[in-house]
């Protein structure tokens, strides 16, 4: 029996290839996501293992404050005297003070910043020859000499090569610190850790006094202290020994703690990527399961006679069902294997992509764990088996007598269960959506409703699809005569199959439409917000995700014709015990460039007053004058609420701290944005030229007027949507393959009928257009259902997210109409192969075939 099953499978390779494709894509996304995140994890872990000293002393809770990643630094310093103190502790072999900055970028010979855009840090440190916990040097000089005196520096070899610098060249650096632009001579190159892998970060090293002068304002102090043991103590014992000698406000951590902290941070930052990929894996698997269900239904229908023969020869129902399941198992196995290979390809592609945006993983080999293989096979095989189960069970119900009948048809199970089930699901889903939108239940409730409606409509598709197909094909008879009538009837005669085929396209298009509506609404909302709430003439921003030097604002303000230059900062602080992103600006000045509405209190915060939004104030029960606990690197303090702001569409943060509080809180001064207003009557060209001159030395800092700023905002939304479209496009391709598959098999099934039509005089051309029209009817049905659902989902999501930056609803009508036209085109394309096949059929054989 197994033998006969496998033979039959081999004989029908082509149709299996198409359904396997869906599994391949799904599994590729799953395994690609695993392989890639494992690779990222392992290369970062490796780096930290090779570069963390035995014990690190740092200001207490430094990690917590920098977890948000805005500046990653802490202005609190460790006095140089601690180095001497620690050197005398038992078990200590070597102590080194560390001066470190994460925002020093290297400008290449061509004037472009190395590794911009990806968020990999530009690290600057004092040159310290101390070893890592594994005993190997953290940095090794590979050419040249150690830096001595101001104006000399080392650079990691890869960055030097990329930037085009050789020893003796004058190197240009830009920083977010007090000295925004630095020039120095390259005296040597280094290797970082053992592998030299900086995952896209850049590294420059200078001698300690120079680093202290540039980054610590000349203080004889350090950001951290690295302690190396003499081997008599374990690292955790050494940590305890060091801790005993520390003054208040400092803490000691061993290499394992550093590794754990970093691992958590990396895992969090990778969650986004893996979630993204897994969502698309889910989409292609769901779409794919429709395709598999359909393929197997048709294969079973086609093999009815053969299956009946098996039954007549003594095969039990279960044997027949099992034979179909074995087929599905093999298909799942093959699909998973190929998908796994594609997954590695995908991971390689992602690696390359990350290289382009500045996170260089080229030195990391792909990490491939058994877990990945296991999950890939489990997902691929289980989905295929699930999708094939219904057709397989139906195969078991083929009566043996069908072996002797000419027109054997599978018994159709009742459509009533589907109708009732689908109707109930759709109603429940719709109720959930309405509830979430009117009474407020959050996105998860809405998402649940959307999912229920999705499945419900997919179940209902055979019922609601029929009238829609009738409507779509209404013009066929008039336009195409008999051919049109036949096409319409063919599309209507097996509503389940038509619906299942169209459902695959429906899912893809529903998601695409949802994204189109959301994307268009987001862009319209951004435009609206900028138009109404932003009154600044210019916006200065940084091309990299990091902030820029706070020294720029006063220089811009000094340009003749500039009326005001107001810096805006984002940073992380604890608000009422919870880590939050907070904004910081001079509220009075800021209100001149961005519309702010004060509900109560005033914008005069002084050096210690908070502004909070009414949303946050209402939630927490705060009033003007109440005190709120704020945690910053230097410690906790309570700050009074000076004013409560109406929710602003521009300002996303709920809490605003005065700039003076950040300075005393130990957060390094660096600006996220700078809003600039021209003086009335000032010459636009002259002011623009003046500001451009200030920024000339800083290639990443860009000046934009309102229009350019809005355009760049729109462009970044477009980029995101383009990526999502590309991935959803795969789902649509799977759906198209589904249509090809269904048509090809329907043609085969109707061999006799096709032969008859040809025998009574239908031309090949007419036959082809009949099949093409049927295909168009199916694909337009999918498009209509999908776009309809997508519109509902998109609009509901926009409504639900109107408090989060998508206030304006904008439906891209032209784009949606294009989708319908494209769907019709897809139908024509999908019909090419099946139509040709039908047309080529020999008339006589077609009518005599059994």
């Amino acid at each position, binding site marked *: *029996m197994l*033998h*006969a099953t496998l*033979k*039959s499978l*081999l*004989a029908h390779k082509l149709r299996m290839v198409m359904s396997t494709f869906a599994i391949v894509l799904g599994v590729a996304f799953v395994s690609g996501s695993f392989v890639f995140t494992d690779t990222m994890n392992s290369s970062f872990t490796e780096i930290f293992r090779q570069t963390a000293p035995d014990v690190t002393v740092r200001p207490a809770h430094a990690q917590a404050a920098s977890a948000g990643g805005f500046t990653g630094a802490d202005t609190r310093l460790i006095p140089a005297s601690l180095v001497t103190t620690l050197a005398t502790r038992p078990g200590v072999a070597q102590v080194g003070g560390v001066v470190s900055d994460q925002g020093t970028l290297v400008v290449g010979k061509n004037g472009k910043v190395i590794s911009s855009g990806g968020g990999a840090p530009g690290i600057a440190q004092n040159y310290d020859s101390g070893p890592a916990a594994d005993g190997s040097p953290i940095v090794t000089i590979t050419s040249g000499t150690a830096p001595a005196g101001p104006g000399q520096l080392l650079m990691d070899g890869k960055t030097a090569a990329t930037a085009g610098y050789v020893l003796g060249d004058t190197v240009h650096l830009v920083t977010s610190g007090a000295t925004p632009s630095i020039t120095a001579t390259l005296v040597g190159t280094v290797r970082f850790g053992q592998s030299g892998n900086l995952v896209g970060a850049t590294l420059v090293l200078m001698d300690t006094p120079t680093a202290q002068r540039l980054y610590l304002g000349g203080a004889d102090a350090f950001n951290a202290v690295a302690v190396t043991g003499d081997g008599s103590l374990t690292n955790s014992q050494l940590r305890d020994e060091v801790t005993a000698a520390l003054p208040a406000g400092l803490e000691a951590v061993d290499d394992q703690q550093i590794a754990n902290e970093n691992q958590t941070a990396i895992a969090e930052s990778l969650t986004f990527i893996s979630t993204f990929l897994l969502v698309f894996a889910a989409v292609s698997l769901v779409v794919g399961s429709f395709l598999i269900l359909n393929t197997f239904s048709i294969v079973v229908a086609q093999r009815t*006679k*053969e299956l009946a*023969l*098996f*039954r*007549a*020869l*003594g*095969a*039990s*129902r279960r*044997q027949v069902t099992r034979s179909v399941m074995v087929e599905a198992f093999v298909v799942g196995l093959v699909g998973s294997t190929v998908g796994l290979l594609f997954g590695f390809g995908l991971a390689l592609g992602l690696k390359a992509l990350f290289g382009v945006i500045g996170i260089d993983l080229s030195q990391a080999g792909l990490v491939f764990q058994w877990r990945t293989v296991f999950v890939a096979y489990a997902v691929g095989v289980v989905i295929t088996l699930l999708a094939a189960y219904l057709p397989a069970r139906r195969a078991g119900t083929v*009566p*043996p*007598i069908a*072996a*002797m009948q000419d027109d054997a048809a599978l018994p159709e199970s009742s459509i009533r269960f589907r109708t009732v089930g689908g109707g109930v699901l759709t109603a429940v889903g719709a109720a959930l959506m309405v509830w979430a939108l009117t009474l407020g239940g959050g996105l998860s409730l809405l998402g649940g409703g959307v999912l229920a409606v999705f499945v419900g409509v997919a179940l209902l598709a055979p019922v609601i699809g029929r009238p829609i197909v009738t409507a779509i094909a209404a013009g066929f008879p008039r336009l195409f005569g008999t051919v049109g009538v036949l096409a319409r009837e063919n599309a209507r005669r097996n509503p389940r199959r038509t619906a299942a085929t169209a459902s695959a396209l429906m899912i893809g298009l529903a998601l695409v439409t949802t994204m189109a509506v959301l994307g268009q609404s987001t862009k319209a909302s951004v435009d609206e917000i900028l138009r109404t709430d932003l009154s600044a003439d210019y916006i200065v921003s940084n091309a990299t995700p990091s902030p820029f030097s706070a020294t720029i604002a006063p220089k811009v303000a000094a340009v003749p014709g500039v009326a005001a230059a107001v810096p805006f900062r984002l940073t992380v602080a604890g608000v009422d015990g919870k880590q939050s992103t907070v904004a910081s600006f001079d509220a009075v000045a800021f209100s001149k460039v961005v519309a702010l509405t004060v509900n109560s209190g005033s914008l005069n915060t002084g050096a210690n007053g908070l502004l909070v939004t009414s949303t946050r104030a209402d939630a927490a029960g705060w009033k003007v004058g109440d005190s709120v606990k704020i945690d910053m690197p230097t410690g906790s303090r309570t700050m009074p609420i000076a004013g409560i702001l109406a929710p602003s569409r521009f300002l996303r943060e709920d809490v605003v701290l005065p700039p003076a509080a950040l300075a005393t809180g130990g957060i390094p001064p660096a600006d996220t944005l700078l809003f600039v207003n021209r003086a009335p009557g000032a010459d636009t060209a002259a002011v623009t030229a003046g500001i451009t001159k200030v920024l000339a030395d800083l290639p990443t800092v860009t000046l934009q007027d309102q229009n350019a700023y809005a355009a760049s905002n729109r462009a970044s939304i477009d980029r995101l949507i383009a990526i999502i479209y590309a991935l959803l496009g795969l789902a649509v391709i799977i759906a198209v393959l589904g249509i090809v598959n269904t048509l090809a098999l329907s043609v085969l099934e109707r061999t006799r009928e096709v032969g008859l039509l040809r025998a009574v005089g239908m031309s090949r051309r007419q036959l082809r257009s009949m099949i093409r029209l049927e295909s168009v009817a199916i694909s337009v049905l999918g498009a209509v259902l999908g776009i309809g659902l997508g519109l509902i989902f998109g609009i509901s999501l926009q409504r639900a997210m109107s408090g989060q930056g998508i206030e304006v609803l904008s439906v891209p009508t032209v784009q949606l109409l294009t989708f319908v036209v494209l769907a019709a085109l897809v139908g024509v394309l999908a019909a090419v192969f099946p139509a040709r096949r039908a047309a080529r059929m020999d008339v006589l054989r077609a009518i005599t075939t*059994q």
Partner: protein
Amino acid sequence: MSVSTLPVPAPTRPAVAAARTVDLHKVYGSGDTALAALDGVSVEFGHGQFTAIMGPSGSGKSTLLHCLAALDDATSGQVFIGEAELTTLGDKQLTLIRRDKIGFVFQAYNLVPTLTAMENITLPMDIAGRTPDAKWLKAVIGALGLADRLDHKPSQLSGGQQQRVACARALTSRPEIIFADEPTGNLDSVASAEVLAFLRRSVREFGQTVVMVTHDPAAAGYADRVLFLADGRIVDEMTDPTADRVLDKMKSFDTTTAHSGAVS
């Protein structure tokens, strides 16, 4: 090949007939459109006998065969294969009866196109999960002259060869009874003669029981006994028939029915 060299299975010969029906009725449709395909058929098929069922189109001969072969269920009455009463059995037991007691030869051969001749022959054993008796298999293949065609796919075989493969398939599992539904319907006279000769030989030499539906008097001439069906009833019977006698009977039968039809 002589009788003495054939590894004839020792046939068990219970007292009961290989197959029989008692007052078998089969009605298609209901109400006004109801059509009685079988109208009270009681008949026995003895062991080691080659029986042909004849009758004009619509006489119910195929329906009788399908009911006997556990392919179709009766409306009322009883069907027995050996001692098993099919009408009381569920799908699982019917499956086992089909698998272990019954062999089939179809008009359209019904070979699995993806399997070779050999694989088609052993398919019932394959389904049952049994290993075919190699000696017996060889004997059957030899008797059918298929030894050099075993690796061919059905599409590479002539109609006669395909039907011989189907005969071999029916015989390898040594069923109690073989049902053949118009086995020569798609064959020319030479190929028909080969297949029929083999069916007769399987009865004479191997002790097989064969029930064959046909409308061809020449085919019926190979049988030990011919049953004549008309309008769902057995109207006549003939033992040791020849093609000519069957033809004469059919002619007289035609005039009788025509006459009776005119009277009623």
